[in-house]
């Protein structure tokens, strides 16, 4: 599990890094512009006026090419003559040992023929595309035919893989396709030192800046860091539960062979030798298990990578993952963690084995009395660890790492509390079950107490798993509830017009001007608000945010705010429209730890950086990246950008909304670049993305339960081995098979109930931490905790159900035991 998430995460990250690398190539710096890019004249100036070389212009954007891939691809416009120093697969095909990836005629066609594409030979082969085929390039719904004129065969594997997600075309075609006429996305440079860049800096327009390639990559990767970290934490959790499992298994094997160990001890084996024997076995098994886990992990990783990629595409940027790459480092890490965890978990049973006395019968009770003496200390440890966890959570600037450390501290502390609580709970229920169920009811709780070192481990494992389920369920449920309510409040317009998105959650590109005009003046529409979203990098924080130019409030004043400047009353919108400042999202404020009231925000305008006072902080669950709302008029003047990416329409009161929507949709029928959505459809779409994002958590929940199930199972099996004689006696003195089943199931049921009851407060605590600490720190979202009794009832049912299910096999096994062998007296 851990390996798979690690791999999937790594794959997505690498896919991104690779494609960035493949595009960045050997560039050390880049000249970047504002939201609309750079004027292409800048390139000429750099080459001619500053006389700087090497420099290469790039125009890029995200497009869909259905024939090539279901995932969004990067369309990159390049100048092949400027390329070779940057990207060696564009080196001339002079017949060098490994440079000959493109032949001269391909390059000629590429340059002379508009809309010609160069793609990776591998990707082409995979999709069954041949040289000369015509593909459909989908740019925000506009479909453009383009011909494949060249296939790239980079010599090295890295580039080959990276190129799978990239489609090259020439600068002019890219400008045309991406609607960026006369503009460049950025200009790549190779400079030995900063000094060499000085002449360029001098001639750049105010909205352009020089940044290092690394800084850019950081800013982009920062966006998904929290997401990846969360996933890693989840996989760590799986590991913790897995350790319970290892503990139980090794314990089982020790108990099973206790007579053997006793004999070995009598024959002169030292405790140390037995200890080494068990640890050696554990390592061997762990190696085997981890290798198996690696195999499974790779398989699972292939599945999970899809989920992760989808989420990244939905929320942050387009990544094209071409299969899961399996780097040795990831495998070695998985192996090391697996073996390490196994060793750690095997230590206690190994000590137990080492302490096997030559006569083995007395062992059990001494271990149990040791546990008994430990109980008060476990409570102390629980209190201390919980306090430590709480302290970690309280640390404000702590960031995600301390938050997760706090979460784990609380969870592990709760596991420590399992033995004393199991003890107390059993003592409490014993009179009741005794009265209700007679002898069996009296035996079951006492058996659990008597074998506390086994049973409480099973309870702890189950409790941990169920708590995680409760915690995650509440978190996801609260999250969903919050998002639904937020969507209700925020999306007030009746009809939404936008280009269809290559990625689901972000608007890329712009609406055609005529579509905007048509929508605004459509009969039956009372009012229209438009927005235009571009991505800018805030110089203050080095963070990429969405800058949204708005000319009206799509929420009609219903939008909830986290903070509004006091003098504005409760509606900052008029001030925003008047150009007095900006409204920022809560995610930005929280992620940058901004104080209240927030300081001015610096935005890189076409005329250079400019400060804007913050009027309000709004809740925004559509992006954790951070958004800045700015008045439309202000944006238009400061950025010189007339595009509109979405229009929200309010239908006149009394007009049938459905009909107006249908009529407008019919008007745009056949136009693939305009999407008309009803309010409801948009909401549904948003929730679909939400659910997809959290799909991985259900896999995690299932996994937790399976591991806990195996934990209970192995605990029961080792218990039965230990109690074979006792159970045999029960049968010999007249307990029927059915009564023995009943006893076993009663015991597991009680253990399940204990775990379930413990999981209620612990799960609640986890949910609280997830909602109020982890979510806030990773995504900058404040959620409203939504507690519903279902979660708790479900937790109890899951705990008892899993425990009972785990008891089925052991009870059948114990029912079929040979009484004569069990009570043999040797």
């Amino acid at each position, binding site marked *: 599990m851990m390996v798979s998430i690690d791999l999937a995460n790594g794959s997505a990250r690498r896919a991104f890094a690779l494609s960035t690398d493949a595009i960045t190539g050997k560039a050390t710096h880049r000249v970047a512009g504002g939201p609309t890019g750079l004027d292409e004249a800048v390139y000429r100036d750099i080459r001619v006026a500053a006389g700087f070389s090497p420099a290469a212009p790039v125009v890029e954007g995200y497009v869909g090419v259905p024939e090539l891939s279901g995932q969004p691809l990067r369309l990159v416009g390049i100048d092949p003559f400027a390329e070779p120093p940057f990207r060696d697969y564009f080196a001339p095909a002079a017949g060098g040992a490994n440079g000959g990836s493109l032949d001269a005629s391909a390059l000629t066609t590429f340059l002379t023929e508009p809309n010609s594409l160069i793609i990776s030979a591998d990707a082409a082969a995979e999709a069954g595309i041949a040289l000369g085929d015509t593909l459909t390039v989908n740019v925000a719904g506009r479909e453009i035919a383009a011909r494949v004129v060249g296939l790239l065969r980079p010599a090295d594997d890295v580039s080959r893989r990276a190129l799978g997600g990239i489609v090259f075309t020439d600068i002019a075609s890219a400008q045309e396709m991406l609607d960026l006429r006369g503009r460049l996305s950025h200009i790549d440079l190779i400079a030995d030192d900063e000094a060499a860049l000085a002449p360029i800096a001098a001639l750049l327009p105010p909205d352009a800046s020089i940044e290092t390639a690394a800084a850019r990559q950081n800013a982009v990767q920062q966006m998904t860091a929290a997401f990846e970290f969360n996933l890693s934490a989840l996989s760590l959790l799986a590991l913790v539960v897995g350790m319970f499992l290892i503990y139980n298994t090794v314990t089982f094997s020790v108990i099973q062979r206790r007579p053997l160990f006793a004999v070995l001890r009598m024959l002169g084996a030292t405790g140390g030798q037995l200890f080494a024997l068990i640890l050696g076995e554990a390592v061997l098994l762990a190696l085997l298990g981890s290798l198996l886990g690696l195999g499974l992990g790779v398989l699972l990783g292939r599945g999970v990578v899809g989920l992760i990629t989808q989420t990244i595409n939905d929320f942050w940027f387009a990544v094209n993952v071409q299969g899961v790459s399996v780097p040795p480092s990831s495998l070695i890490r998985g192996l090391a963690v697996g073996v390490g965890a196994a060793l750690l978990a095997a230590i206690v049973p190994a000590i137990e084995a080492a302490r096997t006395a030559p006569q083995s019968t007395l062992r059990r009770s001494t271990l149990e009395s040791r546990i008994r003496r430990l109980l008060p200390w476990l409570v102390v440890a629980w209190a201390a660890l919980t306090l430590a966890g709480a302290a970690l959570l309280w640390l404000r600037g702590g960031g995600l790492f301390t938050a997760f450390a706090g979460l784990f501290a609380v969870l592990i502390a709760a596991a420590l509390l399992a033995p004393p609580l199991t003890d107390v709970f059993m003592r409490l229920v014993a009179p009741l079950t005794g009265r209700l169920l007679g002898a069996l009811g009296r035996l079951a709780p006492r058996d659990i107490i*008597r074998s506390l070192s086994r049973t409480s481990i099973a309870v702890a494992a189950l409790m941990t798993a169920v708590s995680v389920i409760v915690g995650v369920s509440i978190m996801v449920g609260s999250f969903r509830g919050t998002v639904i309510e937020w969507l209700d409040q925020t999306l007030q317009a009746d009809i939404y017009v936008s280009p269809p998105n290559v990625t689901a959650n972000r608007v890329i590109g712009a609406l055609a001007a005529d579509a905007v005009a048509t929508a605004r003046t459509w009969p039956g529409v009372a009012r229209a608000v438009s927005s235009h979203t571009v991505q800018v990098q805030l110089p203050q924080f080095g963070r990429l945010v969405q800058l949204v130019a708005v000319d009206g409030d799509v929420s009609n004043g219903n939008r909830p705010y986290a903070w509004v400047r006091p003098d504005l009353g409760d509606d900052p919108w008029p001030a925003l429209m008047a150009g007095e400042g900006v409204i920022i999202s809560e995610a930005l404020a929280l992620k940058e730890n901004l104080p209240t009231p927030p300081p001015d925000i610096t935005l890189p305008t076409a005329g250079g950086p400019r400060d804007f006072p913050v009027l309000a902080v709004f809740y925004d669950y559509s992006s954790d990246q951070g958004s800045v709302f700015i008045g439309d008029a202000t944006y238009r003047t400061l950025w010189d950008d007339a595009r509109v990416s979405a229009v929200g329409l309010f239908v006149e009161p009394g007009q049938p909304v459905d009909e107006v929507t249908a009529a407008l949709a019919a008007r745009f029928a056949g136009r693939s670049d305009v999407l008309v959505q009803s309010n409801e459809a948009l909401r549904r779409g948003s929730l679909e993305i939400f659910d997809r994002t959290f799909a991985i958590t259900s896999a995690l929940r299932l996994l937790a339960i399976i591991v806990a199930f195996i934990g209970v199972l192995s605990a029961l099996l080792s218990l039965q081995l230990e109690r074979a004689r006792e159970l045999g006696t029960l049968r010999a003195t007249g307990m029927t098979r059915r009564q023995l089943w009943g006893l076993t199931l009663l015991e597991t049921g009680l253990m399940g109930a204990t775990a379930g009851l413990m999981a209620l407060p612990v799960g609640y605590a986890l949910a609280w931490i997830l909602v109020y600490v982890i979510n806030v720190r990773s995504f900058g979202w404040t959620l409203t905790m939504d507690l519903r009794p279902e979660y708790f009832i479900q937790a109890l049912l899951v705990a008892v159900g899993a425990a009972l299910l785990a008891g089925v096999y052991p009870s059948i096994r114990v029912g079929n035991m040979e009484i004569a062998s069990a009570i043999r007296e040797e």
Partner: protein
Amino acid sequence: MIKERVREAMVGEGAPGETAPPVVRLEGLCKAFEEGGRQRVVLDKVDYQFDRGQFVVLLGHSGSGKSTLLNLISGIDRPSEGHVSVLGTRITALNERDRTLFRRDHIGFVFQFFNLIPTLTVLENVTLPQELAGRARRELEPTALRLLDRVGLADRRDAHPDKLSGGEQQRVAIARALAHDPLLVLADEPTGNLDDETGERVLALLLELTRDAGRTLLMATHNPDIAPRADRVLQLHDGRLVE
């Protein structure tokens, strides 16, 4: 119930004539164990019957099959061939559940290692078999306490077995074996794990509570010193039972 019928047949009519079935009847009883692919015959066509109120000692060196025989009689184990009838019921023809119920109602068992249930108190150990038969504890306690009193442990009724000495534990085990008033008591080396003096006391108690109360006691031991006190002494040798 069988029990009443049997008791009537044996006790009510007085003399153990032809009408009263023997307490235990073994017919062509064979038991073999699979051992590394080879058959190891432990009991070889044993035919025998034990009568009411007798103290039968089963002698034999270790591994001769004494425990195996007792397990077959109590229905804990099943023979390879042949039949076991107890109090007129052919238990080898019963299914697993009925054998368990029969054992619970008619047979008392005393083990070498006492085998008390560690999580139950002395009193609860004694009432356990009948509680398993569905009887309420309160109605069982007076008899159980009387028995504990007979074995001299009434004051330890609420102690747990691990607090008792070996002899005391075995006395509790005897009380447990007798709590449901069985006609047949099987004891597998009941003194084997006790020192001589304690063993002697336990044996005396066992005899007092079984033979002297008209019960049949079948006791396996490798200790020939006990033989003189028995009504019958049987020797298990090479799978055969000889007087």
